[in-house]
């Protein structure tokens, strides 16, 4: 019987949630080892041994220690091809290429402005850091342009990479969730017909609802 894989990092971290969502989609048993980043757990020598950049998440199974959430997700899909959602990373090279394309688009085009907005609008206030209106405006404009591209794509295709939910869509869940639920700028997603439709579908998946529950439990006394 396989031992549960280990994921290191706080449940409120967007990158940690990306990995947890993937593990849940793939029905892979895992243990979440939380870190207190406010106390600097992620910069301590023991953690730096497995994640030298001092970032979350880190991942370990019996065979390997990995960093970078999107690399971890790819590995989970390829290491457990027969478990859970078998098509999450495509079942043939062309499908996989399309998923990789949109996973890269998420990482290069969606992630930077959405992360900046999540930080400014949802996290900075909690951390008593002053918001930067210039940064907010700049990233809203950037994200709007990216979502215009998504709006067109999602008018032609049910999900980003094709007809099936994939790792590419999953990768967007954490930041999009914060934008819609923890800031007042959610309509950047929900007011666009196709993006709104897509958001509704992907955020209603059982795996994502479990992630949201897990985050809520973090908050309860």
């Amino acid at each position, binding site marked *: 019987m396989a031992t549960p894989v280990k994921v290191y990092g706080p449940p409120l971290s967007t990158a940690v949630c990306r990995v947890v969502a993937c593990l849940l989609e793939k029905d892979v048993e895992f243990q979440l080892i939380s870190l207190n980043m406010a106390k600097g757990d992620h910069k301590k020598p023991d953690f730096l041994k497995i994640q030298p950049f001092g970032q979350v998440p880190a991942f370990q199974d019996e065979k*390997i220690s*990995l960093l*970078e959430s999107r*690399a971890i997700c790819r*590995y989970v899909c390829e290491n457990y091809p027969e478990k859970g959602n078998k098509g999450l990373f495509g079942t043939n*090279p062309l499908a996989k290429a399309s998923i990789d*394309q949109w996973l890269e688009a998420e990482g290069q085009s969606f992630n930077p402005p959405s992360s900046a907005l999540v930080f400014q609008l949802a996290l900075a206030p909690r951390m008593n850091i002053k918001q930067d209106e210039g940064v907010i405006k700049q990233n809203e404009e950037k994200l709007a342009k990216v979502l215009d*591209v998504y709006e*067109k794509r999602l008018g032609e295709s049910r999900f980003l990479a094709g007809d099936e939910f994939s790792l590419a869509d999953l990768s967007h869940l954490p930041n999009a969730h914060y934008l819609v639920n923890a800031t007042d700028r959610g309509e950047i997603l929900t007011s666009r017909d196709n993006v709104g439709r897509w958001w509704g579908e992907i955020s209603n998946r059982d795996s994502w609802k479990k992630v949201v529950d897990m985050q809520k439990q973090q908050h309860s006394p």
Partner: protein
Amino acid sequence: MVVKVYGSVKAACPQRVLACLLEKGVEFEIVQVDLDEGEHKRPEFLLRQPFGQVPVIEDGDFKLFESRAIIRYYAAKYANQGPNLLGNTLEEKALVDQWLEVEAHNFNDLAFNLVLQLVILPRMGQRSDTALVHNLEQKLEAVLNIYEQRLSKSNYLAGDSFTLADLSHLPALRYLMNEAGMAHLVTQRKHVNAWWDKISSRPAWKKLASLAH
């Protein structure tokens, strides 16, 4: 069928793809996209690459954008041709993916913004921000310290062989070390320097560099 690569042979992201195709011995044709003239923002181009970026490839009916997706596709498609750029086991492949992500998220932005400040803005007659350059340099030094540590234990980033993870760094590193005048970032680090020497001496890269510069 020749793979069409839309972009410029001088631009970093198309170079990432061209380096991979050269390593794997895959025939390609470069279709010039005039970035200075804003060709990449015109409607005809946006039909190929909706974010208005280069590169995008066309291989018969198959189209793909995002350079790191393109190199993953071709490295896998031609796994049995040329050097193995993806590792042999699932674990080795995972390390290739890991270091590709590190390049994309920890290295690339810093390198790109340094080149923007030190090379591109001056070419456009604009002033660069010295405080920002200093800040970027410090951050990149911290990242390269981690690379130094890694490369002291491993010949290449993902293991004992040259893979996509190393290849992905070539374009930006070349710009940093030449036009941007930041060679010290590499040469001051023993193992990073040795790694750079090895990867930049590969025939495929030398061929591309001579085509481009």
